[in-house]
């Protein structure tokens, strides 16, 4: 069952009524299909309306929806022969960032993705998508592998941020993020990043300074969470909706600001209502972004030069 979002209440009420009608239809031999169809049409209409004018704060809720496509479900659907690779060769294995090699529409790629987990057990296992330094160092190792074998890198961003903890600091969280960022800027191989849900600050940009940045229609990407921003600038986390608006953190905002290169459309009512359809559009968008990146048989050195230029002038 879908986890309900507060602003979806009118739709959820309609869905509940359809469910009631179905139950009713099973007991008596009534034909309620006409009524059901009418309600379904109504749902479709109100979803389109609701999602057509989501506020930034509502979008943050959608971006964090537990039924949204996550890195593992995207990899399972899009990557054939996925072979997970583990460990940073320095300290440990961090399951907040999963990675490996596999085929995207027949072509070998290196995949790096932040995984939040879907239920309590897997959320704990993946530390809610909040990586320790090991996660970033594993990502770097995989980028090195990609370069050695001239494979494109595809990264999936979905994290509240890098983990803020004693051990993470001890083992150099800041250094790990900085080096990972540096590695991503230096590899001489195509690099496409896609924000699936939540792009949380430094923990996200570490694996996303790519040739092309894609964003799901209802994903968000920000320097700080709206709650964090509100508690600093408004002195209360309750002002998060205002902060979400002020931060300009939606896919459309980032596209308009020239940070995101493309917006991947989601099914009506958000990717959580039809994850597979959303994932297929994402797959197509990644393939075309890779195609654009490599157009004209560009060399690895040229890719690196262009990527560097892109970021040297970002922000004006």
């Amino acid at each position, binding site marked *: 069952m879908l986890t309900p979002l507060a602003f979806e209440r009118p739709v959820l009420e309609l869905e509940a009524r359809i469910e009631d009608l179905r139950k009713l239809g099973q007991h008596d031999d009534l034909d309620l299909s006409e009524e059901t169809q009418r309600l379904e049409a109504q749902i479709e209409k109100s979803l389109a309306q609701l999602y057509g004018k989501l506020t930034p704060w509502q979008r943050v809720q959608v971006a964090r929806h537990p039924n949204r496509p996550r890195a593992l479900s995207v990899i399972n659907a899009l990557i054939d022969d996925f072979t997970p690779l583990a460990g940073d060769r320095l300290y440990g294995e961090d399951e907040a960032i999963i990675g490996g090699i596999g085929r995207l529409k027949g072509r070998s790629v290196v995949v790096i993705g932040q995984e939040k987990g879907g239920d309590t057990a897997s959320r704990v296992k993946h530390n809610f998508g909040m990586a320790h330094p090991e996660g970033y160092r594993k990502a770097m190792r995989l980028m090195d592998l990609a370069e050695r074998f001239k494979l494109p890198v595809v990264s999936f961003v979905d994290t509240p941020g*890098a*983990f*803020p*903890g*004693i051990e*993470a*600091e*001890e*083992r*150099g*969280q*800041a*250094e790990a*993020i*900085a*080096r990972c*960022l*540096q590695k*991503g*800027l*230096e590899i001489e191989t195509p690099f496409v990043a896609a924000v699936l849900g939540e792009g949380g*600050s*430094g923990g996200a*940009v*570490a694996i996303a*300074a790519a040739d092309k940045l894609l964003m799901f229609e209802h994903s968000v*990407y*920000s*320097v*700080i969470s709206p709650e964090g*921003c509100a508690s*600093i*600038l*408004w002195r209360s986390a309750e002002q998060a909706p*205002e*902060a979400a608006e*002020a*931060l*300009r*953190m939606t896919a459309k*905002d*980032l596209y308009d*600001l020239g*940070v995101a290169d493309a917006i991947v459309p989601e099914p009506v009512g958000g990717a959580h209502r039809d994850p597979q359809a959303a994932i297929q559009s994402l797959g197509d968008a990644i393939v075309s972004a890779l195609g654009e990146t490599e157009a004209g048989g560009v060399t690895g050195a040229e890719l690196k030069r262009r*990527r*560097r230029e892109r*970021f*040297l*002038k*970002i*922000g*004006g």
Partner: protein
Amino acid sequence: MSWIENYVRPRIQQLVRRTPTQSDLWRQCPACGQMIFHQDLDRAQMVCPNCSHHMRIGAKARFDLLFDADGHDVLTMPQTPADPLKFRDQKRYTDRLKDAVNKNGPGDALKAAAGRIDGMPAVVAVLDFAFMGGSMGAAVGAGFVASVRAAIERKAGFVAITASGGARMQEGILSLMQMPRTVAALGMLKDAGLPYIVVLTDPTTGGVSASFAMLGDIAIAEPGAGIGFAGQRVIKETIGQTLPEGFQRAEYLYDHGMIDMVVTRAEMKATLGRVLSLLMQPTRAVANLPALVADTAKADAAAPAQAGVALKPGGKASRARATEPKQPETKQAEATKAEPRT
């Protein structure tokens, strides 16, 4: 010319001028609480004479401390869009910027200058914590890129002195993008074969620590500086534990292998000059080699006079060089010629 200029104006200025008060003359050390006379504090480079606490200082003070006495050029920083998001919380971002400029002077949080440090060509970029917490927005990012380019143009070493709470959230995602921007700039410096030295000062956290601040060829920190990724309050809230003593201090980072050295403000210029020389003038060290290898006794005797630069960290020998940087260079160049390497 007139009595207005000669008499009235000075009178008005006198009325308006603040007379020095007790609080101007004495400053309290934020660490130990000791009251310190301002002249003593200036003389001590804003380091508490009682507890050695290194107080925060601005860009101009840094330039004066590090560059040789023959002067330095303050670099003009590029203009960037002032308020790209039209950001407004309880206050407009543009008003916050105006306040910061009124308090700190024109520009933004990053200032840079080119000159010499103990004779070595260097560009020094300083983040000023007093300017909106040293936060990094497009102006800081663009300034960093410009400073790196200036270093490359001048074939100078690049020194970044950091003090920052992180990214400037009023610039939203564009402030986050300054992380890859500054890292990309360091790529150019690396290609040019020039050294990058970071001096981490209190505090260095967030997006600044997770980008250019942690990528130095050599990483130096001032004693006691707070350095880390996440803020202590955030960590406490996340893990619900008290933090260990000295957590995220310079010495803690040293113990965990994250930085090369902790250097006092008094020793900083000499250390930077020495490191830059070692990295940028590799043949100068060679000039001392034959003596060290051939005759240990002789080399030992010569050490205080010649090789003292390398052997005594931050000693007087290295600082003495600052006064006549050219002379020893020519001498050693001749010595290299006279004693061909084998």
